[in-house]
């Protein structure tokens, strides 16, 4: 299946290989964590995931065609 990842701007500044979005291919039953790994993002690189205007958990199963917005970790100032 295919899942689209959209990357927040602050994340793109840290990881040069990221564009605005990336389509990744995953096996059925894969999780959001596996989607991030497929985009070559190390663990901890992502702060929050959003999908359909809600928070997406890192261990949540993703589905074909799903769009996930990947936001960077935040510092709080």
């Amino acid at each position, binding site marked *: 299946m295919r899942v689209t990842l959209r990357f927040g*701007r602050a994340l793109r500044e840290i990881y040069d290989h990221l564009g605005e979005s990336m389509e990744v291919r995953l096996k059925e039953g894969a999780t959001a964590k596996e989607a991030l790994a497929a985009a070559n993002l190390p663990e901890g690189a992502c702060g*929050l995931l959003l999908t359909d205007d809600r928070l997406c958990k890192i261990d949540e199963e993703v589905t074909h065609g799903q769009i996930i917005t990947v936001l960077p970790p*935040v510092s*709080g*100032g």
Partner: protein
Amino acid sequence: MYGYAGKILRVDLSAGKISHEPLTEELVDNYIGGRGFGAYYVYNEVPPGADPCGPDNRLVIASGPFAGVFLPSGAKTSISAKSPATGLYGDSNVGGHLAGELKYAGIDAIIVEGRTPVPSYLFIDDDRVEIRSATHLWGKGAIKTEEVLKEELGDEFQIATIGPAGENRVVFACINHDFGRQAGRCGMGAVMGSKNLKAIAVRGTQGVPVADMDGLKSVATVMFRELMQDPGLKIWQDLGLAQVTTWANSIAALPTRNFRENFYEDVNGLSGELMKETIVVGDKACFACPMATGKLCKASFRGKTVLVEGPEYETTALIGSNCALRSIEEVAFANYVCDELGLDTISAGNVVAFVMECFEKGIITKEDTGGIEAKFGSLDAFCDLAHLIARREGIGNILADGVAGASKAWGEESSRIAIHVKGLEWSGYESRGAPSMMLAYMTCDIGAHHNRAWSVTHDIAVGRDIIKGKAAKVVEFQHVRPLFDCFGVCRLQWVELGLPLEHYAKLYPVVTGMDDSWEDLLVKSERIWNLTRAFAVREREDFGRADDWPPARFYEEPVPDGPLAGFRITEDDLNTLLDEYYEARGWDENGRPKAETLIRLGLENVASELYKMGRIS
């Protein structure tokens, strides 16, 4: 002069004298504003050896060129002084609505010196400035004081106050503003209290001249539009800064039980999501900010229900997991207690966690605590200790000097677990598994604070076990991030939502009319960094590498559990980090700026002074 009000207000509380001085082009050109002004005046006006709580210290309250201007969140006021926590230069910034109001009253900075014989507050209504009696306010909580002054003067006045902790010179007393925002760090509240100055109330009706209004509209419109279209904006509006907690835990950086651990098993009880579901009752924003990260919460404890702004991440980390509280409502209540007493929540969380671990280890007993069962997880203990600290009663008198002061009283075993650098308690990122962040804390000019260089993401990106090559990134951050404190603008829009730095580079000339490039501005930031370091070198003959060293816990104890169990950083690693850092900065092996570095930055007089004193070569 564009982007500035054009005046410095000087208040000599000993003499009861109020005067205005012109803002000079030289000051603006060299130090920009905000923390830059603070560094300049503290270096040049506070004599070496001065008591931070004595009349010779200066309290500098300064905005910058972007403050009060129509652009995203020109809301920051920097407050600087010689810090009673560190004995070195200190500053802290606060959002809300104070910075713009000061400029609308025609003031770029207030310099407070001396001490009033009776409790007073400073009243500013455009050009009318008075030192007024505050005897009816003395002893009151910070939030209560703001309520009373708003009732007396009118809601349009912006108020900065201290609580009992500032009056009693607790070294981590903060200055409160807007009912829930604080200049929290470095004990600026204690400096204000030592001057018998309970509050500052300001109202202004003037404008801020800008050099190119069309240019400003153009850049600011793009910035606002990009912010409003950012996919992350809604999550900020929903969760505010509390969203950081579960992430910090997931990467093993969440301070837990006095930084003994960095992974908290009960983190779900502290999450931003739970906070939104259970205690948030409203949103609050600073001047011209679409992010509205402030969350108004209701919390109950001991039969009392309070309304409090927060807790944000730092408070949740230091009071929550670090003291092992288990619910976000408990943290919110403790947040309120600190706000009303005028205590910095970061340091207060550190201090109470330190007490709890000392109690657990038997270093202190109930005899020392005055009967308080100071166990991890006890909100009762937190609240009781906070009240004692703010009033310097019983054990509170020892704790009011911070973990550094208390560990001197309680001996060697306690000093290994007193989590601070230079006397300032560590903020919310446990860094054994993040070497560049560790270095950022070690070298931050005000002590162990994260805001100058938040580089955890760099460690994650390039490798958490990598030591070499990380110092350059820390230096880079230490120049970029403090620029925002000089501009008088919040950095969240850049740091968190990725608003490009190019926008800020474009804002500077259209607001000020000056043609500085971004690189020019970074040099100014480096100048300010070296000036605050020079203050430390001038202040103490023995100041140097040892002052940049972290607490023993971090290199003696590997991470005990969680995702990074067994991970450790060694003393050799720390020395490698410092060696690279000093070289990158043009400082000697003991961490003192070389004369050539100071001269390159236009600090010839400083170089000459330190050279004559034998402090640099």
